[in-house]
């Protein structure tokens, strides 16, 4: 604003300056001639939304590494003993998928509340709490599944199949616990008297949570087919 204003001189009417052979080496002068920056603005999403996708990429890569380890290990194995998946695992699957549905409903209710369409804060909170509860039921269910395996005499080191079962499910549960922490944070923020929950926080948490469901389906398929 403090910059001197001068009337544009004839040079400014020249076409965009370019020395013709720069290959884009920083010589092009892309400064907007009319001062408008609209064209130059990048689309910048909220960091938390980008962050969660980047984090999910890393998690995907980790599970890809576990999978390839499993495939290599199986190919050299003479000690591969197929294990029967504990029955409660299927119940857990249903619970985790149901939690994705409740979370999606919660997300829409939160959006309605945030837009001021409804002053009812308890409905989104109830759906979020339901999701949280289902998440904890899933974690408990996985713990029971490990107990069932132990009852069969299958421990972490018993054979490669049980090793991979425990490792894959435990790492998945660890990530689910991270998601539960995120959900608790959302609930905590939503309970504040003044609404300070950002949409991106809600979205990032729900993307992460839905991904936990997708990841679980993948882990279950790997266990089912391979172990």
């Amino acid at each position, binding site marked *: 604003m403090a910059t001197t204003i001068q009337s544009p001189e004839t040079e400014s009417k020249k076409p965009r300056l370019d020395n013709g052979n720069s290959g*884009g080496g920083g010589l092009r002068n892309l400064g907007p001639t009319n001062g408008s920056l609209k064209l130059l603005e990048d689309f910048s999403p909220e960091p938390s939304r980008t962050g969660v996708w980047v984090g999910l990429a890393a998690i995907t890569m980790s599970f890809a*590494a576990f999978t390839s380890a499993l495939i290599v290990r199986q190919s050299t194995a003479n*000690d591969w003993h197929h294990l029967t998946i504990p029955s409660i695992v299927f119940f857990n699957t249903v619970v985790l998928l149901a939690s994705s549905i409740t979370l999606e409903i919660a997300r829409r209710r939160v959006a309605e509340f945030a837009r001021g369409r409804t002053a009812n804060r308890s409905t989104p909170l109830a759906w979020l709490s339901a999701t949280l509860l289902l998440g904890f039921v899933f974690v408990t269910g996985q713990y029971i599944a490990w107990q069932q395996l132990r009852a069969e005499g299958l421990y972490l080191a018993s054979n490669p199949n049980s090793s991979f079962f425990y490792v894959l499910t435990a790492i998945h549960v660890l990530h689910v616990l991270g998601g539960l922490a995120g959900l608790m944070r959302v609930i905590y923020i939503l309970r504040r008297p003044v609404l300070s929950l950002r949409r991106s926080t809600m979205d990032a948490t729900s993307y992460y949570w839905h991904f936990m469901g997708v990841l679980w389906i993948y882990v279950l398929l790997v266990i089912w087919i391979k172990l």
Partner: protein
Amino acid sequence: MSDRVVQAVPTTADVVHHHQPPQGFIRKYVFSLDHKMIGKQYYALALVAVFIGMVLSWLMRIHLVWPNWPIPGLGLLSKVGAPGGVMTPEYYLSLLTMHGTLMVFFVLTNAPFAAFGNYFLPIQIGAEDMAFPRFNMMSFWTTFLAFCILIAAFFVGDGPPIAGWTSYAPLSAVGADAGPGQGFGQTLWGLSIFVFCIASLLGALNFIATTLDLRTRGMTLSRMPICTWAWFITSCIALLAFAVLLPACLLLILDRVAGTSFFIPAGLVISDRLQPHSGGSPLLWQHLFWFFGHPEVYIAILPAIGIVSHILINSMRRPLLSHKVVIYCMMGIGFLSYMVWGHHMFVSGMNPFSSLMFSFPTLVITIPATIMTLIWLGSLYGSRLRITAASLFALGFISMFVSGGVSGFFLAQPSIDIYLHATYFVVGHFHMVMGVAAIFGVFAGTYFWFPKMTGHMMNESLGKLHFWLTFIGTYCIFMPFHYLGLAGNVRRYSAFVDDFLVPLIPVHRFITIAALCTGAAQLIFLYNLIHSRFRGAPAPDNPWECTSLEWIMPSPPPFDNFGGKHVVVYHDPYQYGVKSSTGDYLMQNSPEQVEVRT
């Protein structure tokens, strides 16, 4: 005729928000959320690590050529490993392992990427901090924890592990039977790297989100300085590479402490004891490790490439022949880095056809590397280069990168690698192209950015002296390694037990003396660093007449970088060789329109 038209647009947009700087000592210097302080913390940690790593290399070099000389004080560090100051062969391997691990993880990953990246990436894109400052703080302190765990290995049980920085299974997985240090020491190694992976993942996530989301108005991707691009590409590589090392370390730790058999085969007898494991695959560890390990090489070198390009452009006062092609080359290297891990495993017993499949992309990597080198050289040709300590180290980087890279052509061919793999040739190759080259990048960055980071200039004469001693010294150390390798000198031996190696001892002696001298020359750097920090001449805002955003702010930058304002960017990053009101360059945030001087 006027060259410029000043326009009625603001240089800074509306005031966004203003942060109060932290007051307490703890918040300001220890658990700081400020990316600049975290960058400095990373730099300090790398300095400590590089000092320890260098001392370890001295101990190894001294032992190699004067094996019976009791090194004063070494006996205190380990009574078992170095009774009376003379190290055992196993302790030599321990020092080798710790040297490699410290240097690769805590120096080459931390200094060029985490330290400079943390400090300058947000500033160069006009952000006031990283996207997730708390993650940033956590990632430094997690790295510090990993460092402490690793150093603790010196003081537990029978010392540090002996498995090398690559920790090949099954010897790294079976426990104490595999030798001294393979008990608790090796477990600490696994734990340390596991924790380091978490820290690096947090860091990489932060870098990516910051670059994508926090760029200021007008800072399009193509307007980012070349080093910002390098840090961004590096963080993409690090994200996927460390995400693979993390599971690998977990499986290794489980093999060691929980009795699983991921990497330990059946019927393995070590130290006359049948190991209670079955069916594991030692090659699996190598696959997982090198899937991380090769990209790790580029995690070390790409930031240095970016820093060096940035400095060279500034010193030449003109842009590179092609800014974009260098960025595309870095992307290409990053992409190819995931396809070549098998070239570390030519002698592992892998299928020879696989070797061929890994050899081809390895040779392809030389194409983008060569293109970059040619662009540097072509841009340098005919330029009136400003000779500073920073630009000298940048030139030194190119020299090291080429000298070390050329031997890569040979090693990429399985048939030649079979002969050279376990020799000093490989040691010379990776020390030059990955170790010394990246360190030269760090030195260049230090001389270049020190005024901005501290508000004081470094002593240029001492800097140039430091450059020449280091440049000549490193060539004296690492060039003969290639000769030793061709002569068949195997790696990792602590003594010359075979007759045919005895004639090579004078070469080793020369290398050891060169290493001691080059190490001593680093004291000049250390003195320059510390003395300039307190007594150096005050630095102006833009001592190098550089165009990127870090130079529009005071030296050192205020806590909130741009004073709570958004900078507006109007230009590509390197507007040199122009006629503007400031001279032959134009700052990125300057609204001036200038004609290009041809």
